[in-house]
């Protein structure tokens, strides 16, 4: 049984070496050279080295790993979600599913996020009563999907936890607000707007929450510097944290 499963998994189109290789070469370059040296010349001889970001992970069924109790209900959740979306003829909302570190992530298209949230909350088989908010993450080198909005949903009825992730490009940073379904996301969405510049459409009052109202920029984006001044300590000067040597 498990051998059959492994063979199926290995022969799935996205796992074939040729396909994997092409995906890898198409992935954006994360950095070049070694040791992340940017101020001095790279004398290591590895200047031509190109490190690419990893290709997105597609997990395939079964999502439940019998050896990992943390994954016990993943197949059930995925089935129930699929059934609920099929009933609405919205099966294509979920782009891919990723199982890693004992957590399941549904990567969804942003257009269907609100509908999906409603399904997650109201479908009796799912019943994710609690949303623990939205978390912004900025990946500047993922062209076309730089900004990620990450949601965690918790079902008290079924004692289950899932992650839903959606992306939007820097050029069009819009994600639908789910405050109408999960009112608790009000402040969380304001925070993600404040720090990342993600515009949550139809949010009741999308204003800054932590930074002053007239602040320029969105501080937790990767292109926003940390700032700081060099500090002198016992005759030596310590550079500000974002200018210190970086080990990559």
């Amino acid at each position, binding site marked *: 049984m498990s051998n059959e499963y492994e063979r199926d998994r290995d022969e799935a189109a996205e796992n074939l070496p040729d396909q994997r290789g092409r995906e890898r070469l198409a992935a954006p370059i994360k950095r070049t050279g070694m040791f992340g040296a940017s101020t001095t010349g790279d004398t290591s001889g590895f200047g031509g080295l190109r490190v690419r970001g990893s290709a997105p992970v597609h997990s395939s069924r079964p999502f439940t790993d019998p050896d990992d109790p943390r994954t016990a209900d993943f197949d059930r959740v995925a089935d129930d979600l699929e059934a609920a979306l099929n009933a609405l003829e919205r099966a294509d909302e979920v782009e891919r599913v990723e199982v890693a*570190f004992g957590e399941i992530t549904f990567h969804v298209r942003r257009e269907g996020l609100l509908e999906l949230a409603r399904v997650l909350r109201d479908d009796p088989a799912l019943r994710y009563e*609690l949303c623990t908010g939205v978390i912004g993450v900025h990946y500047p080198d993922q062209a076309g999907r730089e900004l990620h909005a*990450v949601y965690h949903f918790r079902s008290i009825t079924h004692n289950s936890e899932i992650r839903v992730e959606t992306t939007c490009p820097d050029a069009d940073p819009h994600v639908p607000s789910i405050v109408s379904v999960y009112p608790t996301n009000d402040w969380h969405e304001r925070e993600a707007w404040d720090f990342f510049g993600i515009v949550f459409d139809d949010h009741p009052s999308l204003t800054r929450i932590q*930074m002053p109202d007239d602040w320029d920029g969105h501080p937790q984006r990767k292109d926003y510097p940390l700032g700081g001044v060099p500090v002198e300590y016992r005759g030596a000067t310590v550079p500000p944290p974002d200018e210190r040597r970086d080990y*990559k």
Partner: protein
Amino acid sequence: MTVTEDYIDASGGDWDDVVEKAQGSSAERLVVNMGPQHPSTHGVLRLILTLDGETCTEARVGIGYLHTGIEKNLEYRTWTQGTTFVTRMDYLTPLFNETAYCLAVEKLLGITDRIPERASVIRVMLMELNRMASHFVAMATFGMELGATTIMTNGFREREMILDVFELITGLRMNHAFIRPGGVAQDLPPGAVGKVRELLKEMPERIKIMRKLLDENPLYLARTKDVAYLNLPGCMALGITGPLVRASGLAWDLRKSKPYCGYENYEFDVPVSDGGDVYARYRVRMAEMEESLKIVEQCLDKLEPGPVMIEDAKIGWPAKLALGPDGLGNSPDHIAHIMSGSMEALIHHFKLVTEGFRVPAGQAYVAVESAKGELGCHAVSDGGTRPYRVHFRDPSFTHLQAVAAMCEGGTVADVIAAVASIDPVMGGVDR
């Protein structure tokens, strides 16, 4: 009809002018800015209240006055240094912040099962002590805000006993940075177990005194019973967890439903009340302290000699600490070992201290049941030696959204009780 004429803005300026204007106009609504510097707003919380006489018709919350950019700062330090930052978020529950963060890092490293038993027991013990300390402050500040300073002095006095234990074990009363990825910074010092036992003996009596003072106190009941009511559907919609949701009748506790650090091996109850008001929250917190005492006692029984840091030279922080004449520092034995004993140990020490360890790329979300509710840590790694992004889902931040639901329609005096019963800590709200 002019809309601007029917309220008086009291958000600044001379108070005499406001009074004069209020007396001279027909306006009935008064907008008051309570805080961000006000003794009863729990730090730098700003409440914007619209009052119609004594009734609060609108309550809005302004936060951000204590934003320190901790999450951004984390991205420029190693994973281990991260504990030093997160412990300062909600400064009344430092050990919960550290545990949530370390559990997330450990999940990414895939070493959750390899954390030494003794380290987990110490973590649980410290967290439960911290829960009591946090609840004592919640009670104390609550009393002070209602004008009952005895509750305040009692609460802070009992908390001091717990902080003494923290000081003995971690070296600091707050901001410990004691729980580290892989275990804890050092083993319990001599005398720590005795000190905790002493506390266990003394504390039930102290809790009893507090209960005697408050449980049936008519003044206290008048200020808390049926005040700031929030029912279970309201809690769920607003994402409320912790003592607040348990005071609305739902026995939801992550220690029971998603056990971490071996909580499944401890016997304790989850106190619930269905009052949904300030008094119910008080009762739940008091009962939780008694349960915490039980857990701490079981921790002492479970403490077996053994390592307190993961035995993996590539991850476990190598330095052992010792008390020298000039304070706590690297132990001379460890220095001798790396300088003249083992070349590998020196390399590991050097690499771990300067660069830190690499954490596999990916993301993890770990939630712990902090004294205030679900404290979640979302850690994202790009495979490097520094966090790519760390976000804390702080319960206080989420809970403050309930102020409007709890206060609108009540009297202005009840606003104070409502905010105090949420027990927000601005360090955690603003991060």
